[in-house]
């Protein structure tokens, strides 16, 4: 049965949002509303916001006065979530969980074990990245239920169709963990959607039917999403199907931990250096203040393009307020040098980002991008994603083989700044000229309104589109997936048997389709757990179902193994020949099954996510 509401949730790295529409009214093109999210913003103060900062603070007895955290639905919440968590975390970082989502996709960490806050004092009982994500969803669920159920309507969020967004760069593990977080939060009808697609849907929503006039067959849209913590690229082609325009997401980028927070911190570091040259000492607490002030100064300068500088004032601590005040200024020239030239430098399309991880960042636990140049990451994306793509016939390419977008859609807080958009388009244009194409003008930049809520709104729009109300982007698997098969070779001491990779899900395999590997059978023992090694690739897009690979260099990476235990009454211990089947479901999940030769019995393989060694 269809749910009463269609709900889109943007579970962001730094901010989350929820949008919804009444599905009964969907037929008349109901408006998509952004939900207000009441949260504790200061002790004793609950206020409505439309964003929920994705921060969780674990309060101890010494943190807040008793009763000052109470929410209308919970007198003594166990965790502080939202704006106050972010503020308090700046004063007491050991108890703060930030960027939980980035941890979800960090294969080097044990993502189901309680590891957050990272480097927290021992007496704190930690949470796993999955639990933290689930807490955010539970918070949203409680607000929804308080609002809708208490209002006598009985539309619990658990019973609604929820469209939850994930970065396009999330692999099957990270998607599976996101699903588990939703499940733990009690959401029963969840479908995952890639964020850049959601951003594109938000643009479609804002255009109504006129989007068909903005793009034409053969166009290639680059979605460039630079948020607070991550950068994500996708390519969408426009083609023709039954006389109508059809959209297909044909490429997604890697997970790049680089965003607006890095930029603000870079500015704060610059001003810190300036002040230290003048003989001032800036302590870590003041650096926080400087960080915040730099963000405001940056936004001011981006908005007031004629101003050449903006003052940055740090008030003195304690009672020496005026006496201890430190004043400096952020010059436009510095903003240009650090942000525009530092993060969006003019580079050739062959300039690839540095791969090495920056030493100083390693202690922070997350694999932050080593190269801060967004444009270099884009160069890699455009040159790499198109190689061997089965969709390559539909992707516009230049003389040098670079994918050449005809349109750009910006998303994420960073891309609000005109200066940065212009720079990105400028760099892209220099590549297009080199590749022999016309440059992009203002009409080629697609603007999704309301960047902060675009992803949540787009997710709700997608939910509506799935019910036949609007155009859908076809996407399919964002990677190629393989089962590892150990070669039958004499064992050599100290050497693992060489691994072969059997392609089970090709890149782009569409939702609602199945694939069978008929030629290859595995003998599995009934009643005993069997384990399959599971691998994926973002680069190899040409492999077809059933292909068996031997040498792939660094193009394929290993994920957590898949487990299955065959159960069959009365057959304990017998070896049963099975073949593999794969399926991409309508809700965007990947399923692998073992099927008996006669097809009468099937067993599902489960992803067994656990810590990997050696990282």
């Amino acid at each position: 049965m269809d749910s009463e509401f269609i709900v889109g949730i943007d579970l962001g790295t730094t901010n989350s949002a929820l949008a919804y529409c009444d599905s009964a009214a969907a037929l008349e093109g109901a408006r998509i509303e952004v939900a207000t999210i009441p949260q504790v913003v200061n002790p004793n103060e609950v206020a409505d916001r439309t964003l929920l900062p994705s921060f969780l603070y674990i309060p101890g007895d010494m943190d807040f006065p008793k009763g000052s955290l109470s929410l209308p639905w919970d007198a003594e919440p166990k965790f502080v979530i939202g704006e106050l968590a972010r503020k308090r975390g700046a004063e007491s970082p050991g108890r703060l969980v930030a960027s939980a989502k980035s941890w979800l996709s960090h294969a080097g960490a044990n993502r189901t074990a309680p590891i957050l806050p990272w480097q927290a004092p021992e007496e704190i009982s930690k949470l796993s990245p999955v639990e933290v994500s689930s807490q955010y969803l539970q918070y949203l669920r409680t607000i929804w239920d308080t609002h809708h159920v208490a209002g006598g309507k009985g539309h619990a969020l658990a019973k609604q169709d929820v469209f939850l967004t994930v970065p396009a760069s999330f692999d099957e593990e990270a998607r599976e963990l996101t699903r588990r977080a939703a499940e733990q939060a009690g959401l029963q009808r969840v479908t995952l959607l890639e964020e850049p697609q959601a951003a594109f849907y938000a643009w479609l929503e804002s255009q109504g039917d006129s989007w068909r006039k903005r793009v034409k067959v053969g166009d290639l849209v680059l979605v460039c999403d630079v948020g607070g913590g991550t950068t994500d690229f996708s390519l969408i082609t426009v083609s023709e199907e039954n006389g109508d325009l059809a959209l297909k997401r044909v490429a997604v980028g890697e997970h790049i931990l680089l965003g607006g927070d890095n930029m603000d911190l870079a500015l704060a570091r610059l001003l810190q250096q300036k002040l230290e040259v003048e003989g001032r000492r800036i302590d870590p607490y003041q650096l926080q203040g400087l960080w915040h002030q730099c963000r405001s100064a940056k936004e001011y300068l981006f908005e007031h393009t004629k101003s050449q500088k903006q003052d940055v004032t740090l008030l003195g601590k304690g009672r020496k307020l005026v006496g201890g005040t430190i004043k400096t200024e952020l010059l436009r020239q510095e903003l240009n040098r650090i942000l525009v030239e530092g993060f969006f430098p003019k580079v050739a399309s062959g300039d690839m980002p540095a791969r090495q991880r920056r030493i100083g960042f390693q202690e922070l636990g997350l694999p932050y991008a080593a190269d801060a140049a967004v444009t270099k990451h884009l160069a890699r994306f455009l040159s790499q994603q198109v190689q061997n793509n089965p969709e390559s016939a539909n992707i516009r390419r230049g003389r040098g083989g670079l994918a050449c977008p005809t349109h750009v859609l910006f998303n994420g807080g960073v891309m609000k700044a005109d200066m940065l958009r212009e720079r990105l388009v400028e760099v892209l244009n220099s590549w297009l000229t080199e590749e022999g194409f016309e440059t992009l003008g203002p009409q080629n930049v697609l603007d999704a309104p309301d960047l902060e809520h675009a992803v949540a709104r787009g997710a709700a729009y997608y939910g509506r589109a799935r019910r036949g109300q609007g155009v859908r982007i076809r996407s399919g698997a964002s990677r190629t997936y393989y089962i590892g098969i150990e070669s039958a070779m004499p064992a050599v001491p100290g050497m693992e048997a060489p691994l072969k990779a059997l392609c089970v899900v090709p890149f782009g395999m569409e939702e609602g389709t199945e694939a069978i590997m008929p030629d290859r059978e595995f003998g599995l023992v009934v009643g005993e757990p069997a384990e399959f090694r599971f691998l994926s690739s973002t680069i190899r897009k040409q492999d077809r179902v059933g292909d068996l690979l031997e040498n792939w260099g660094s193009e394929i990476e290993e994920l957590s193994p898949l487990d299955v235990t065959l159960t069959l009454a009365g057959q304990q211990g017998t070896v049963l020949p099975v073949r593999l089947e794969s399926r991409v479901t309508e809700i965007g999940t990947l399923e692998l099954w073992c099927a008996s030769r006669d097809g009468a019995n099937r067993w599902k393989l489960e992803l067994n996510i656990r810590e990997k060694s050696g990282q």
Partner: protein
Amino acid sequence: MIGFSTRLSFAFRCFFSLLFEGKIPQDIVRVLTTSNAEVEPVAARAAPQAQAQKVAGDKLMPESADRAVQMLALLQRDGRLVDFLQEDVSSYPDGQLGAAVRSIHISCRQALDRYMKLEPILSSEEDHPVTVPVGFDPAAIKLVGNVAGEPPIRGLLRHRGWRVAAVTLPSMPLGSGRAIVAPAEVEIP
């Protein structure tokens, strides 16, 4: 219980009186102490410091005074207003003072916008003629200069005045928190 508008006006008068004169107006003290037998007149008349100590014990200040302290605490928390007023600024050069004030001004104003909706009492332009109607409220409109005759009276608007249109203060802290304008901060190394 005293009506809300009276409490509001008391709260403001207490706030500014505490701020600039360090005491609560006597007439308010009288009204409050007769209407609220819990509070002893001695405690209410005492200096704010003594009151804070009293509060730290068991008894609460009257609600209106609590709200005044709360507003002050909000302006301090978001805009460092109390730190600023309590500092001896006479020795600092104007440049230094200016830099601090600019920052304090922005943040205090944001706090004010957040918790209190202010509007002018008269909306005409200042230094333009206005008519003071029959039955005007002398609390809202103050006549200066050659005050004579009967309304309606024509005059020049010298100051548009301010009135609080809405107050959206957060809920009150519990117990001793009500007397705290800013907590002491101790950094654990």
